[in-house]
């Protein structure tokens, strides 16, 4: 069975600073996808970044980047130049490339951005 672990229930970062949210996962799949979603107080689930496991290059989207360590099954999210609007719950998720067709989510990390 696939599992996703986010060991930091809550993190804080000063505005304009950098923060890293950790995520580890366990899967027996050889091919899969990894995602970070953001859920602000509005409740909307917003895709932040996506990584294909077969790609060695870390995905980047503007101020958001990942550190994907496939052997260690680690998929951390780095947010640079943090902004007040980054405050939200962040969920890590895995998705197999075949078979069960469903996301497995972690328990989330609440990020607070301090002005």
């Amino acid at each position, binding site marked *: 069975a696939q599992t996703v672990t986010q060991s930091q229930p809550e993190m804080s970062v000063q505005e304009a600073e950098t923060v890293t949210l950790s995520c580890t996962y366990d899967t027996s799949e050889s091919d899969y*996808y990894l*995602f970070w*979603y953001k*859920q602000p107080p*509005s*409740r*909307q*689930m*917003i*895709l932040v970044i*996506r990584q294909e496991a077969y790609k060695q290059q870390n995905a980047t989207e503007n101020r958001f980047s990942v550190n994907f360590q496939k052997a260690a099954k680690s998929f951390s999210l780095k947010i640079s130049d943090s902004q007040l609007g980054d405050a939200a*719950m962040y*969920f890590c998720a895995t*998705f*197999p*490339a*075949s*078979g*069960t*067709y*469903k*996301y497995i*989510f972690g*328990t*989330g990390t609440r990020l607070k951005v301090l002005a």
Partner: protein
Amino acid sequence: DTAVSQTPKYLVTQMGNDKSIKCEQNLGHDTMYWYKQDSKKFLKIMFSYNNKELIINETVPNRFSPKSPDKAHLNLHINSLELGDSAVYFCASSHRAAKETQYFGPGTRLLVL
């Protein structure tokens, strides 16, 4: 031009009632999903339909019944509501069942009194 929409956004009802939540996507996607987010923010898949056919049916009470009249709609009907059904329910869609990013609706907060 909302991509994935859900109605209603809030639903307050009494135990024992029957209620429905509707979901529509205008992205042309083939696959739609229902997720439940509990009070601890844990998100878990409930159902998934691909081209109107059920492909995921997690262990949920049979009081929950999804219905997909066409590819763009996936509704969730809940019979005999219980206190434990209180949660936020998210609809999502993706182009295909596998590999594709899922796009989520705004969620429906259900409160059962």
